Every structure is written in structure tokens, then in C-alpha cells.
């Protein structure tokens, strides 16, 4: 960034912008954790996610910004609100009392002896100073890894470096990561079904909005999937946008009709992971290393894997939003 604009005024402006952004992040984070009322904490947390995405944009990391925006704005906020709704529905008792003076120290709801409190503060100060000192003394990092990435870029079949690293060079990480996602869903389902919240029929406006917005979301998800190979985008971003579309569907009260909930749903969920593993295993039989995509066909292969991954990530995220096994309800 700095290289492009030589004007001192410009760097000053950037510095100003960054300090404000940094301060806003810290202040928002602190308020989100310190606010007495739970709902206010969640709203602040959603705003924190938005600011985080802007920071990623500022740090010249478009892929990360896309992922953070899609997952943070789309899914985490909605998930937190639904959980809060379920928790609130359980106990009507305490309404958050505004305790002004205690809020600063966040100790209003914790019975802490001052001794252990001070002791804790000492540890935290130690941690912070250690971290800051370590970070500042980091000498110039050797960039041979980055040179390596750009050198083998063209043989990876994808031109966007981040997607190349994610799917080809460190494909094994992504494989494990997709299994983590699937595992989370399995865990949630293993907790058993959830009490069905009484759904009021969506109003006309909501219907109209969802009819317009959801197809658009799906198109955008496809767009991200396609653009992933040469510009920031890719399987995870596309998958999370698809997940957000699914969340919107579920919010509107749409339920998967019975025919789909059994085996077909499970197959879709496992589809992404299955394609990834089978592609890798098939390659072994062709005499290659575990996940070595032949450069000629690498691009197409990666796209195939990404498409399958986007589909199953989207469906998994939407199913996660349900926080429980989908109950069988006739499609209205």
C-alpha cells in the first residue's frame, strides 16, 4: 500500500484511519464483553464482526475479508440471536439492571476476592508485555516461503495465491478442516432434537424479501465459487454465502420436506468431503502422491472439489443454524 502513494499526507491519513479503526475495535470488544445486558453484548459483537471485516480489507487481505463478512455477518450473528431467544424464553426472571459503576470492571456479576483479582491482573499484564515485546522484536521474516508459493503458482492450476495455498499446497489442512465442520454438525445432531419454536407465519414483506434475496444469494455464491481461481473468492466464501441463504430460508419458516431429511440430506452433507477424499485417493492409484494434482488437470480438479465443498459447506452451515436435528415437518 505505502509503495503506491508517496504523499506524506496520504500516509498521515492512513495512520489516522488505522488508529481510529484500532481504537474502535478495542473499545467495541471491551464494551461487548462488559455490557450488563446480554442482547446488547450480542449486538456489539455483530458490530465487532463488521469492523473486523473492514480491518481485513485495510490489511489488504480480500479473501479473509470475504470469509469474515460472509460467516460473521451472515451466520454468527443470526446464530447468537437465536440462541439468546431460546435462552431468554427459558427464564423470564432477571432483566439486566444497569449498574453503571461496576460495569467498568465487569465484576458486577462475579464474586471475586480482590486478592485473586489482583493476581489475575498481574498475569494478564505479564502476558501482554511478553507478547508485545515478542512481536516487536520479530526480525524481518525470511520470505522464501512466499517466493516458493509464487514460483509454483502456475503449476497449481489456480492463479489466486491464497486459493492455491488453501486447496493445493496445504490441501490436507482444508481436508481436515472440512471434517471439523462436518464433525460439529454431527456433534450438534448427537445432542438430539430441539423443542420446535412456535413459528408465526412470515408476513408478506418477509416473503417478498426472501423470494428476491435468496436466489440472488445463490447466484452470488456461484459467482464466488467461479471467481475463486483467479480473484479472491473460493469454496469457503461461496459456501458461507450459500449457508447464509439457507439460514434466511430457515428463518422464513421453510422446512425440508420429509422425503429429503433422511439419507439424501446426509449424502449431500458428506458429498464435499467425499469428493475431496476420493479425488485424493484416486490419485494414489494413478501412482501420484497422496494429494498431488497433475498440473495439467489441477485447475479443473480443484474447481470440481471446490464446487462439491461449497455445496456441502453451505448445507452444513444452514443445518448448524438449526441447532438440533431437523424435525420432520410436512412442507407447507
Amino acid at each position, binding site marked *: 500500500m505505502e509503495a503506491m502513494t508517496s504523499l506524506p499526507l496520504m500516509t498521515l491519513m492512513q495512520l489516522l484511519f488505522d488508529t481510529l479503526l484500532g481504537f474502535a475495535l478495542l473499545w467495541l470488544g471491551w464494551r461487548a464483553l462488559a455490557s450488563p445486558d446480554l442482547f446488547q453484548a450480542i449486538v456489539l459483537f455483530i458490530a465487532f464482526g463488521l469492523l473486523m471485516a473492514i480491518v481485513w480489507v485495510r490489511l489488504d487481505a480480500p479473501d479473509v475479508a470475504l470469509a469474515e463478512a460472509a460467516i460473521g455477518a451472515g451466520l454468527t450473528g443470526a446464530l447468537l440471536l437465536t440462541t439468546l431467544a431460546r435462552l431468554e424464553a427459558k427464564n423470564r426472571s432477571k432483566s439486566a439492571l444497569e449498574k453503571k459503576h461496576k460495569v467498568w470492571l465487569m465484576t458486577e456479576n462475579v464474586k471475586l476476592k480482590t486478592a485473586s483479582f489482583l493476581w489475575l491482573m498481574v498475569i494478564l499484564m505479564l502476558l501482554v508485555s511478553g507478547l508485545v515485546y515478542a512481536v516487536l522484536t520479530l526480525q524481518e521474516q525470511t520470505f522464501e516461503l512466499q517466493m516458493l508459493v509464487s514460483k509454483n503458482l502456475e503449476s497449481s492450476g489456480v492463479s489466486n495465491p491464497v486459493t492455491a495455498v488453501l486447496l493445493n499446497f496445504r490441501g490436507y489442512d482444508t481436508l481436515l478442516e472440512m471434517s471439523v465442520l462436518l464433525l460439529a454438525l454431527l456433534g450438534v445432531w448427537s445432542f438430539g432434537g430441539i423443542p420446535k419454536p412456535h413459528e408465526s407465519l412470515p408476513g408478506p414483506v418477509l416473503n417478498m424479501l426472501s423470494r428476491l434475496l435468496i436466489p440472488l444469494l445463490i447466484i452470488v455464491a456461484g459467482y464466488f465459487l467461479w471467481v475463486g481461481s483467479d480473484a479472491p473468492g473460493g469454496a469457503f466464501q461461496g459456501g458461507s454465502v450459500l449457508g447464509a441463504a439457507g439460514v434466511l430460508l430457515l428463518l422464513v419458516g421453510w422446512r425440508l420436506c420429509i422425503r429429503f431429511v433422511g*439419507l439424501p440430506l446426509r449424502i449431500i452433507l458428506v458429498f464435499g468431503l467425499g469428493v475431496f477424499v476420493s479425488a485424493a485417493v484416486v490419485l494414489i492409484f494413478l501412482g501420484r502422491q497422496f494429494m498431488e494434482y497433475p498440473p495439467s488437470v489441477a485447475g479443473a480438479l480443484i474447481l470440481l472439489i471446490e464446487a462439491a465443498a461449497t455445496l456441502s459447506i453451505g448445507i452444513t452451515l444452514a443445518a448448524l443454524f438449526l441447532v438440533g436435528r431437523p424435525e420432520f415437518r410436512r412442507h407447507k
Partner: protein
Amino acid sequence: MLSFLLPQRVKLLGLLIAAGVVAAVAALGWQVAELGAQRYAIGGWGAPLGIDLYADGLSLLMLMVNAVVCLGVSVYSTGYFNRAYFRRSRAIYFWPLWMFLWAALNALFLSSDIFNLYVTLELLGLSAVALVALAGGADALTSAMRYLLINLLGSLFYLLGVALLYHRFGSLDITILSQHIEPSPAVWVAMGLMTSGLLLKTALFPMHFWLPAAHASAPAPVSALLSALVVKASFYIFLRLWLEIFPVDSSVFGELLGVLGAIAIFWGGVQALRQTRLKMLIAYSTVAQLGYLFLAFPMASYFAWKGALFILLSHALAKTAMFMAAGNILHFGGHDRIQDFDHVVQYQPLTSAAFALAGISIMGLPPSGGFIGKWLLLEAAINSGQWWLVIIIIMGGLLAAAYIFKVIGYAFTQSRKSHQTRRVPIRMEWTALILAIAAILLGLIAPWPLAIMDIGLPFSGEAAG
């Protein structure tokens, strides 16, 4: 990794896959024994760019123990989960989660890339939490929640350490890092972070509060897994990092770990004595046995490492057998309060035999694997002239003996109130017994695993002994 199970498969395939993985591990074992440490670059890229799988003596041994224990648990849980005791819908989910856990363990033992280790740790943590929560009881859920939070906290610490290391050296691969490493403030802080993260997950003394509750409330096969393998996985990573990456001249740090280990032994032992429920007793004994593993750090000599590793292996086998025995008793009597064991010996001869044999290995009586491990540690302690370690090792053994005999004593007596008993499928008793016998046999065939340990890089370095 091959044991990814599609959610809709159930028990039958579970066993099939279990057998398949054991065969794969055996094949790998043979390969490593023949050709020395194996390095396998995934995706055909070099070490710094791609991720490498690295199988040396250390990881091979862990894989073998992992395979044996997991096979036992699979057979055991076929019996455990088909009883009316467990609602059918819950039992289905045991198998896929369990397969994920096993795959995570396999991946973890093989990987040689620190970020990859982070992902496997996370995979391991989530599946373990889901399994603990499977029991569905109020305390099971609360302890699962606490375990999840502790897990996430530990992994975040670890990730921060990885970030610092990466930005300092530009590479994530352990072998490359070990060549570049030189003590600088960033490395010290990274080391501190990663150590605290991993110790949190290994439940060393000050950070062990989550372990007893999680182990006691989880279903028997799951708690067997937790204490035998999951806790050891993070110890394995810690050991691998400590030997290869962290600057070795940190003896003051080793001393601290040794002291913590010693406290863990005493505290775990005393707590175990005070427990009324069998599962809590076994959980606290795990805390104590973990202390032993950390005793090796102050000495950091060749024998010390081998001793600690041997205890790790024998403890894994013995503790699984113990938890299975506890599971059987729980099934049989419907409760596991130690006072009310009546005629357990008469009704379940095999289970109590398994419990006794496993107890011998935990205590470290002569024929068992535990004894070999303790003997090696003792030898190392005497060589390095740290006498206080010798006392601790012996004291730990006595404490273990105390709480084992307490349980066995009650097993023979007649309890005051009688209550209905249920037949326990014979499979479950046999697996417990076989594993207990394996723990004993481990002692008899000691030279063979000790030889395997030498293949790996970490030990040959300091063969000073």
C-alpha cells in the same frame, strides 16, 4: 485418515473399519522398522510449502497403542451401546463421532506441521466433547461444556504460539524449524504460550480441574478413550515440540515441570483415596499417572524419556481396561459407589480380574509394563543424582497401591442393601480382561518397544543415557 465414516453407517462397518486401520498401522510399522523414519510429502510439494507426514519411532509407538486400544474400545462399545440402557438414537451417533476421534488421533500422531497439529487438536477436542455430551445427563453436559471451553482456550494459546513461530522463521514444518531455532525473545514467548496451551489440555496439576468431572460423567468407553489417548495426544505434541523445537538448555523450565508432576502425583493419589465413586477414583488416578510423565523433564536423559514413554504406553492399556471394568460394574449394579459393591467378584469374575491386573500395572509391580517404566525412571533419577525424584516415584507407587486395594477390598465384601443386577454381555468383560493382560505382557516383551523408540530422531540425539 481412511476411517472417515459416512454418518449413516453403523456398527457393522465400524468394526470393519477398525480392523482396516489396525492392518494399516501394522503395515506402516513394518515399513518404518525396515526403512527407518518415513517422510511423506502430501500433494507432492516440498516440506516448507506443503505439509509433511513424518512417522518415526515415537509416532509409530503411539499409533500402535492407539490401534490396540481403539480396537478394544470398538469391540467393547458394540456391547455397551446396544443395551436398552442407551437410547437407540444416541447410540447411532457414537460410531461416526468415535471414528472421527480415531482419525484425528491417527492424523495427529503422523503430522509434522505445527499448524496441521492445531487443526487435528481442534478436531480431537470437538469430537471428544461431543462424545462426553453423549451421556446426556445434567453433569455430563456441564462437564462437556467446561471441557469444550478449556479445549478452545488451549488451542488458541497454541495457535498464538504457532503464529509467532511462523512469522519468526517463515516455515511451519517441525524439522525445518528445529534447524533454524535459536533462543530469542519471540521464541521464548511462543514456547511459553504453546506449553501453557498444551499443558491445559494435558491437565497437568494446576490445570486439571476439568478432567475428573469430564471422565466420570462420560459413558465408559468414552472415558476410557479420554484418559488413555486424548490427554496423551497433547502430551505427545508437547514432547515432540520440547525435544525438537524448543532450545534444550532450558533446564530451569524442566525443573518446574518436574515439580508440577510431583505435586500432581501426590494430589491425584490423595484425591483418589477420598473418592466414593469408582469412575471418579480412576479419573483422579489418571491425574496422578500423568504426573509421572512430567517427572522425566528435569532429568531429560535418554533413560528418562524412555521410562516416561513406557509408563505412557502401559498406562494407556491399563487405564482403558480399568474404565471398561468400571463400565461393566456400572452396568451390572446400576451404580458405581464403591461401598455398595456386593459379590462383584462372584457375579463378574472376569471384570474384577481385569481390574486387579490393570491395578498391578498402574501400581508398577514387577511383571507389568508400569514397573518397567518406573524402573527406567528410577535408574535415570539415580544416574542424574536427583534423589527427590526417587522418593516421589516410590511414594506415587504406594499411593496407587492404596486406592487400588481399597476398591478390590470392597469388591469381595457383602454390601448391606441388595439391589437388582443385570447380566453384562460377555464381550465387554473379555475385552477388559484382554487389555489388562496386554498391559502386563507389555512388561514382559519390553525390549521390543524400546527398540522401536530408537528409530525416531528425538532420542538418538541424546543417547548419553
